[in-house]
């Protein structure tokens, strides 16, 4: 199985490199950074530029062996033991004289904004969770370290390779701000519909491949007293808009998502988005439970563990997040989203895999070299392995799954990825670029799914908000080509 992952990733890596070459050709300033040239001749980087990459395989960033390192970890679904019992000991092993100050928090923004303001940020930050900091805004304020030296540095496992060549395709792109890599998205996440394999087997149900099958299955589940499909409206409406976007991309191709990211005129009222929104709304309005608009994600997930919810939209972290609630008889599996039309551009097997969970290095940290080295350790096979063991999630390191026995959920994601082949739904930047629009998207998603507006109104409202965002001079503009 891991064999097939490698095959497909190699294939799409070539595709990715082609894309990068193209980007460099289009001469986006700073895109040269991504192409192979590591000389950095035209680096007119802002005041705080990080340590250079010396090319020394042992200590490429010139870390001072006794320099203390402060690591801030978001204590969410991944926990923090992957750092305290994984990466930090690995760093200590390399630099026994360094002291590591570990901080675990869920209030990343509230805790760290004042420290950025005071010019005393920590060295390394897991910038995740509901209260994460806006990376784009931090870059604009020259607060983040350009991670190019890291990507160009030799890999720990094979010094003849650069780190960027040891990562899964699509790892670097979501972390680009103004064309430069500032965010390391470390976790490889597959998105889709999650269900209990055993429950499905018992009832001889199979995950639906089309929305018609979805409705037929929903009828059966309903008569079995199970809510066929649900998401948590109270705090996780974004799980549902992911599904809308994935379906829209399957209908009309990845350019649909690119257009949404770029705030193109008519992107939200485009046919694929409209169809996708209508299809999902029909499912939830017909078969969902209105009360779930008031539930939190953990509550709905627990209902699923109790066999009361059939299919649930989420990502690879779900299995680990629910570890404590999941009964022994429950076996997580993930299926792709059903096809909306028979003329969809992407096949049913297409899924969205994205590099997620952003890690950043403040440019004004005291030990930026140490932080880069810490990331290099994370991106080693050993770092990836220990991360999987402690957090239950696979990383963007190629071959991270080799030699580890995968949990059922992770295995089903890996299977889905290999079946999808080149048909991968791209990442979306709305969450990081257009915060205001994203807030509106959450609101409108709930309004649509719980029947207060129609799919047409949904598209209309989002289009208006996108227009407003586009015309707002106070919001700095971003653009992606593909």
């Amino acid at each position, binding site marked *: 199985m891991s064999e097939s992952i490698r095959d497909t990733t190699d294939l799409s890596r070539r595709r990715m490199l082609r894309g990068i070459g193209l980007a460099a050709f289009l001469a986006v300033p700073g895109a040269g950074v991504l192409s192979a040239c590591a000389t950095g001749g035209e680096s007119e980087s802002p005041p705080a530029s990080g340590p250079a990459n010396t090319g020394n395989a042992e200590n490429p960033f010139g870390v001072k062996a006794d320099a203390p390192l402060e690591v801030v970890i978001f204590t969410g679904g991944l926990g923090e033991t992957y750092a305290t019992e994984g990466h930090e000991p690995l760093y200590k092993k390399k630099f026994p004289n360094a002291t590591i100050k570990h901080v675990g928090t869920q209030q990343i*923004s*509230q805790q760290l*904004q*004042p420290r*950025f*303001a005071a*010019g005393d940020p920590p060295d390394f930050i897991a910038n995740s969770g*509901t*209260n994460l*900091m*806006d990376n*784009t*805004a*931090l870059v*604009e*304020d020259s*607060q983040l370290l350009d991670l190019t030296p890291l990507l160009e540095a030799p890999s720990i496992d094979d010094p003849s390779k650069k780190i960027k060549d040891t990562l899964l395709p699509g790892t670097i792109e979501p972390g680009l701000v103004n064309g430069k890599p500032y965010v390391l998205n470390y976790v490889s996440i597959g998105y889709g519909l999650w269900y209990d394999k055993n429950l499905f087997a018992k009832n001889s149900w199979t995950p639906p491949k089309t929305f018609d099958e979805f409705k037929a299955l929903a009828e059966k589940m309903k008569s079995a007293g199970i809510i066929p499909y649900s998401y948590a*409206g*109270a*705090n996780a*409406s974004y799980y549902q808009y992911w599904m809308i976007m994935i379906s829209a991309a399957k209908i009309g191709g990845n350019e649909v998502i690119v257009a949404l990211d770029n705030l193109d005129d008519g992107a939200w009222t485009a046919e694929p988005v409209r169809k996708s929104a209508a299809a999902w709304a029909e499912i939830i309005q017909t078969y969902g*439970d*209105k*009360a*779930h*608009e*008031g*539930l939190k994600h953990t*509550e709905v997930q627990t209902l699923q563990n109790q066999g009361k919810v059939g299919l649930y939209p989420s990502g690879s972290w779900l299995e680990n997040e629910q570890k404590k609630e999941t009964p022994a008889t429950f076996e997580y599996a993930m299926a792709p989203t059903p096809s909306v039309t028979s003329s969809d551009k992407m096949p049913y097997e297409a899924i969205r895999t994205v590099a997620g969970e952003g890690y950043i290095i403040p440019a004004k940290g005291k030990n930026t070299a140490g932080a880069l080295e810490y990331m290099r350790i994370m991106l080693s096979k050993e770092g990836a392995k220990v991360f999987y063991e402690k957090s239950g999630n696979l990383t963007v390191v190629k071959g991270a799954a080799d030699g580890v026995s995968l949990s059922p959920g992770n295995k089903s994601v890996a299977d889905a990825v290999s079946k999808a082949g080149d048909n991968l739904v791209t990442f979306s930047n709305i969450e990081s670029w257009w*915060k*205001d629009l994203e*807030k509106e998207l*959450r*609101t409108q998603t*709930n*309004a649509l799914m*719980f029947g*207060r507006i129609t799919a047409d109104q949904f598209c209309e409202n989002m289009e208006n908000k996108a227009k407003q965002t586009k015309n707002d001079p*106070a919001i700095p503009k971003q653009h992606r080509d593909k």
Partner: protein
Amino acid sequence: MRQGRYRFIIGFLAVPVFLYGLYVIWPFAQAFYLAMTSKRTAASPDRFIGFDNFERLFQSDRFWKAVGHHGVLLLALPLITLAIALFLAYLLNVAGGSRGGGMTGIFGSKVYKVIFFLPQVLAVALVAVLFQAIYRPDGLGALNAVLESVGLGRVGWLLEPNLALWSIIGVLVWQAVGFYVVLFSAGMASIPAEIYESAEMDGCGRFRMFFSVTLPLLWDTLQVAWVYLGIAAFDAFAVVQLLSVDFGGPDGATTVLPLEIWQEAFRNSRFGYASAMGVALFFLTLTFAILALRVTRRERIEY
């Protein structure tokens, strides 16, 4: 001597005035300044943009929605809380009639007092978690389970856009009432027993007693309570943040200014704009406090 007295006064005042200036006035001044910059994060350089943030603010739907909700809170929260608190305080302190030279409450009033006060000592986060379970919209919610067991349908307490704000107000009232019961109890205890006695001798019933004796003599306390609750109505952040659907939803039906400020500052990274909202909130609160004190000013009854 005169000289010495001033030195004495200044010596006493200098430290508190300095601290007040440093920790109250100075942050306010900073917020006013920030409101006129385009600052995005706390670390942004300050770029002065005049009143642009305010212009944007006054055109924002969510801002006016939030202001409208404060209007509702401002009317409902004090009215409901004070009515309930007065009623309960009266029962606990006076309604038992006079016995042994003083007015007493109904039977078991001391126990009730403790029970009523209890929500006040609970942390807001706890209260919110408690009410999440009470308002939970499916059959597992405490309220809905009761409704279902008596054959009524479930209610989406926090889901119906027209009901959600009132559900939130319910929580705020529940939490506040206890404190005002105790406050009014103290006020009622300080009303001389002779007044009640003479009223009773004149054949005054409990209703009349409340409206003609207790209420007027409690006016000062009431006025303070009104201002407190009014100011509380401009907050409500924690309860809305923890309890409402989708942070101030559904469809923005429960959002309040502090929540919008929090979202703008920490989610949308627009410190300048968030500060502008903070300044607007400051003036709203100030206006309310001044109005409330003006309107409720009345001649003091000496006793």
